[in-house]
């Protein structure tokens, strides 16, 4: 600093502005462990807080109502610690997932076709879109009895319920993505006399990909919830986690109910993360938001 010419005080600047400012050396990039700590510590702390709150609420319950909130040791001893029960839990998870995935598959395939059709023909968009909103606002649970009467108690009615829960997000996000293609990119294709189909394939669909996958994540995490909800109404046949929840209540095995709830959350999160991961893999090299976590 000493050999630097400090401009003479012209009176325009207050003295205080002509002080030398120390440089801050470039910080070294955070190490892997440091990044792990910054990413993991907050959720772990929050988790501990939730567990403490749970324990605190539980301790405040009168003893004859403490079954509503089983203790951690209870959940281990009466549920996750019993190999037979864990096997049953896994088997039921597979059943629930089969319903969820089939329903979601139906939603995705029909939803994509519907999104494209609405994109192609404006009058179909005008015709269909209001009813999509209506469908979304129908309380699906209220029409379960109707579905039971129509389709019975097998696999398909449950799949249909999942489809009803998860359908809305697919055509709507796809349509939104397809419609937000840059006007001039469409002009570029138009100048080459590209057909509608080629423009869809080479411009609109890739562009809509990230938006559509946001829709898939929403539908995906709803699918497991919907599958379990559907099972609550269909107690016959080979049941999944939903049936386990009801059985646990009837048999007064609240530890098992909690185990089923934990399993259901794990499945839901897994489906959500799967679409997140797939979306990242497909789009992160060009789509900025896809590259970021969460």
């Amino acid at each position, binding site marked *: 600093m000493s050999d630097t010419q400090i401009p003479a005080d012209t009176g325009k600047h207050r003295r205080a502005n002509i002080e030398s400012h120390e440089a801050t050396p470039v910080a070294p990039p955070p190490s892997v462990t440091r990044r792990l700590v910054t990413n993991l510590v907050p959720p772990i702390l929050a988790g501990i807080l939730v567990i403490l709150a749970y324990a605190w609420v539980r301790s405040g319950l009168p003893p004859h109502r403490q079954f509503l909130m089983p203790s951690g040791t209870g959940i281990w001893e009466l549920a996750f610690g019993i190999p037979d029960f864990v096997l049953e839990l896994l088997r039921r998870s597979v059943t629930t997932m089969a319903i969820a995935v089939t329903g979601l598959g139906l939603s995705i395939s029909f939803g994509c076709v519907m999104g494209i059709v609405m994109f192609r023909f404006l009058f179909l968009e005008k015709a269909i879109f209001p009813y999509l909103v209506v469908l979304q606002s129908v309380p699906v649970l209220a029409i379960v009895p109707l579905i039971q009467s129509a389709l019975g108690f097998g696999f398909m009615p449950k799949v249909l319920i999942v489809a009803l829960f998860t359908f809305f997000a697919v055509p709507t996000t796809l349509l939104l993505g397809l419609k937000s293609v*840059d006007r*001039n*990119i469409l002009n*570029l294709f138009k*100048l*080459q*006399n590209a057909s509608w189909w080629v423009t869809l394939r*080479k411009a609109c669909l890739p*562009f809509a990909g990230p938006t559509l996958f946001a829709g898939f994540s929403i539908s995906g995490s709803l699918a497991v919830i919907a599958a379990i909800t559907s099972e609550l109404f269909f107690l016959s046949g080979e049941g999944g986690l939903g049936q386990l929840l009801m059985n646990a209540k009837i048999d007064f095995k609240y530890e098992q109910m909690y185990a089923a709830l934990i399993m259901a959350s794990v499945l839901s999160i897994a489906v959500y993360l799967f679409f997140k991961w797939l979306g990242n893999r497909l789009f992160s090299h*060009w789509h900025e938001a896809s590259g970021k976590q969460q």
Partner: protein
Amino acid sequence: MSADSTSTTAPEGRAAADGASLPGGNAIVFDHVSMTFPDGTEGLSDVNLAIAPGEFVSIVGPSGCGKSTLLKVASGLVTHTGGKVWVDRDQLGYTFQDATLLPWRKVQDNVELLMELRDFPAEERRRIAAEKIELVGLKGFENHYPQRLSGGMKMRVSLARSLALNPAVFMFDEPFGALDEITRERLNDEVIDLFVREGFTGIFVTHSIPEAVYMSSKVVVMSRRPGRIQDIFEVPFAYPRAPEMRYQADFSELCGEISLSLRKAIEG
């Protein structure tokens, strides 16, 4: 109006593929062209302009006067509502106000896009794309995605993409408006280089009078909306042009004249 322009056109100026069929051997002719939008606003009104093969014509005018509409009419992106337009749209280059690259395609694949839409064989696409990428100075960036390129580089990719079709007519819709001045001036030189080398006919819409004069053989001033041709200025400087030209007295003088004309156009 174009018969005496030989001294200012590019040396290798070539006619459109079937140039003979256009009136007067021109590359583009607007004959009493008008354009009324569906909501009733007049975009263009009685535009008459003939552009000879190998000319580079810039269009300046007040904001919203229909400069871009003129290009869209010429390219067929919008349909005019009166008069006639002659142009060979088969070999048309077009750059937009932004680079309009497909972000999921690498530079190479972006440059190949238009050839793909024209069903060029893969082998030929690769060869031509490599050639044009080198021509715009992006050799080595073939495998980059657009999001990693600067604004100027994206524009170069966009130019290469159009050049791949070997356009006879090249339309520029304010392509460098969003770039910083130094990048803009460099791209001006590069477009002039390409113009001299490839010999297309250029129409260049811009807000900048010095840019228009620097690049063109002719500068067209449009009136405010509804746009019509107000003045046409011949630019007497030979190609290729040197950056120092911008600081010469006759250059500034011409800019001044056009500026006055534009002022008149805005005040109506």
